[in-house]
């Protein structure tokens, strides 16, 4: 449905058009009327009509001036010009400003309807073309995104698809090289957010800031959501080293903005510079590697080549943070090796023979950091606090680095144990909701993709998550729920077998019996018989 404006200083004409024409039938839902050109312009600006029927001779603003002014305001409605007098000059101007028709007064009803229908047909065609265009560009964008993801994952077989094929599809570096970047909220920050919605919103905002900052440096930025992280692709003609440096700058600015805005930290991984499409998967792997490194090291930046250059930095910013991260992960081996490295570094800095005071200070410092870094994230019992205090008492009796090493090692073991027991008891926050959902809906046909969709999860991710968290596959779990409920119904009532089957979500009785036998070792009928005999 379209909007139409009638502009004419003849009141009877306006009244007639308003009253006697079945506008709805012509595809017009709203009709406005103006008694002069200035009013017509105001109404047109406010309502943006699709069609304007205007007199040429009007007070304030003539019909031709109205067309011109609207065109200058970037409004291009369909114009039908009406005039009392046929003048060639008028007609010529009207055509110049895109009039569809030029009608002479008195305006015959049929002529007007024909002209309006012509406008509507033009508008429909325009709309259709726009829809086609949108559809085409969105489908080609989807295809492009899919191909880029395949390129990043190294899934595209270059023995079958040549680079020039991809170029034809618009998949081509606008510059000489490209680089893959991964950035997201630092994993340790996830525990901070209070609600899922908030987390999602912050996530959106973070990816937007990162993208904006990258495009400030590199222009066009492509971004993809893959493997649960935001992946960005930037393009540049800079030499590799400068390219990497520019990306680091952009990400550091983004990081700062994000910290100020959301009080969260982001981690990022910068990939290698790719000179051709087939190198993209390497860039992605490198970015992935760097961000993993950064996660495990509790650093924000993921450039593996970067080395800290003083003991102070190593001690405060590097090893201790990654040690805490390793403890939180429950990784005994990694934390042991990091502790060894740390002490070796300390010995090296101290020239091989640290004083007892230096040892005690380092010991207390490390204790302090470990307690601060680990205890707040645990439901700490009194017992654990007592153990921790014992370690502080040990400080006065410390004289050698070996002793310090073994004390710290045993503390780390205690902490890891605490973390492990805590995390093993804690399920993924969604799992309880998913299980509730299954318990409520098992009576209906329920596929894995239905449930995944209900929680906005990717089906394969859902499958993996469910198996990891519950120890059984979704299908097996659902069978279990259904069979358990069926057992209840079989024991408690005299329901017919096919009613029981359908009550627990099986439309096929035969299949239900097979599943039941599989899980229970007996058929449903045998089970019922055994219940009744009790």
């Amino acid at each position, binding site marked *: 449905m379209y909007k139409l404006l009638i502009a004419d200083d*003849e009141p*009877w*004409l306006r*009244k*007639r058009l308003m*009253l*006697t024409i079945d506008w709805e039938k012509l595809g017009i839902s709203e009709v406005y009327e103006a008694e002069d050109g200035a009013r017509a312009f105001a109404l047109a600006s406010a309502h943006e009509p699709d069609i304007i029927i205007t007199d040429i*001779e009007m007070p304030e603003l003539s019909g031709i001036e109205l067309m011109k002014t609207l065109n200058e305001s970037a409004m291009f409605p369909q114009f039908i010009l009406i005039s*009392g*007098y*046929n003048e060639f000059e008028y007609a010529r101007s009207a055509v110049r400003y895109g009039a569809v028709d030029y009608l*002479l*007064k*008195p*305006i*015959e*009803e049929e002529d007007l309807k024909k002209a309006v229908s012509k406008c509507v047909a033009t508008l429909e065609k325009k709309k259709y073309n726009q829809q086609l265009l949108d559809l085409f560009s969105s489908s080609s964008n989807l295809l492009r995104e899919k191909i880029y993801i395949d390129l990043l994952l190294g899934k595209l077989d270059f023995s079958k698809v040549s680079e020039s094929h991809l170029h034809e599809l618009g998949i081509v570096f606008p510059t000489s090289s490209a680089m893959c970047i991964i950035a997201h909220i630092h994993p340790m920050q996830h525990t901070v957010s209070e609600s899922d919605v908030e987390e999602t919103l912050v996530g959106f905002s973070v990816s937007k800031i990162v993208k904006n900052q990258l495009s400030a440096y590199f222009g066009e930025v492509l971004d993809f959501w893959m493997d649960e992280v935001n992946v960005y692709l930037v393009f540049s003609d800079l030499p590799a080293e400068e390219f990497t440096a520019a990306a680091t700058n952009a990400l550091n600015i983004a990081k700062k903005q994000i910290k100020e805005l959301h009080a969260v930290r982001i981690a990022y991984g910068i990939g290698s510079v790719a000179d051709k499409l087939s190198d993209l998967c390497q860039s992605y792997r490198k970015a992935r590697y760097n961000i993993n490194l950064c996660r495990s090291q509790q650093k924000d930046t993921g450039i593996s080549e970067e080395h800290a250059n003083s003991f102070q930095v190593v001690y405060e910013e590097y090893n201790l943070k990654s040690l805490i991260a390793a403890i939180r992960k429950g990784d005994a081996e990694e934390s042991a090796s990091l502790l060894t490295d740390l002490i070796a570094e300390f010995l090296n800095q101290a020239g091989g023979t640290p004083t007892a005071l230096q040892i005690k200070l380092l010991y207390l410092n490390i204790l302090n950091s470990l307690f601060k870094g680990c205890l707040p994230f645990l439901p700490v019992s009194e017992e654990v606090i007592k153990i921790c205090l014992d370690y502080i008492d040990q400080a006065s009796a410390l004289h050698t680095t070996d002793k310090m090493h073994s004390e710290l090692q045993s503390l780390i073991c205690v902490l890891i144990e605490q973390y492990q027991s805590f995390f093993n008891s804690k399920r993924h926050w969604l799992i309880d909701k998913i299980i509730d959902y299954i318990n409520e809906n098992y009576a209906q046909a329920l596929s894995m993709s239905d449930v995944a969709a209900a929680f906005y999860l990717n089906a394969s991710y859902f499958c993996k998550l469910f198996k990891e968290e519950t120890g059984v596959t979704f299908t097996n779990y659902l069978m279990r729920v259904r069979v358990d409920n069926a057992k209840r119904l079989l024991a408690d009532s005299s329901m017919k077998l096919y009613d029981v089957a359908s009550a627990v979500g099986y439309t096929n009785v035969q299949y239900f019996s097979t599943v039941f036998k599989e899980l229970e070792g007996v058929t449903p009928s045998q089970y019922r018989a055994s219940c009744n005999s009790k």
Partner: protein
Amino acid sequence: MAAEISTLMRNVSEEHNRKIIATIQMLQTEINPHMLYNSLESIYSIAKINQQEEIANLVMALSRFFRIALSGGKHLVPFREAFELAKQYVTVQNIRLNYKILFTYDIPENIYDLNVPKFLLQPVIENCIIHGFQNKRGEWHINLSVNEEGDWVVLTVRDNGIGIHDSTLARLNKRVENFNFEDSAMGKGYALRNLNYQIKLKFGEESGIRLNSVYGEYTEVVIRLNLAGRKTTRG
């Protein structure tokens, strides 16, 4: 002496003729076309709002008639306009006469672009309606047929009216033939005489108008245009 009188008479006549032309031109320019058509638009709109279709149709036909009739300056127009003028004239009269007239026509496609005097058909049809039928009962049939015969285009307007007595017919044809300023009082038959004069002016001496009739059966006006005799001057 006789020649002097004749010259004097011609001068007087030409003076008279100029006066008529001036009057027409004054009428054409004095009427503000916007005022006229806006008024007609108002009448049409009021009629439409009050669902008076007859009034609406009459005003519409009248407007279209004026649109061509009053389009200043152009004496020669494409045949389609001259025909449209005649058609709208019939429509106006038909509404007035409660659809008594049946107007039929047969025109070859290529004729429509031929340049002809604007008032080629309308005065002929006006004659039919005003003189041809009197108060004849039943349907008034007017037929226009156009035929091409070599260099000639022949237009025949025939009515099924009361017809003309032979003696009257001869007199009428003579008057139409012998158009001169001495006789050009705006009385009976002036329109056809004037038209005949104009046709000869544009299409040469051989072209012209002739009336045929069988009393009590029909009257027909035959307009013969010699395309080979066309004058190149326009207007």
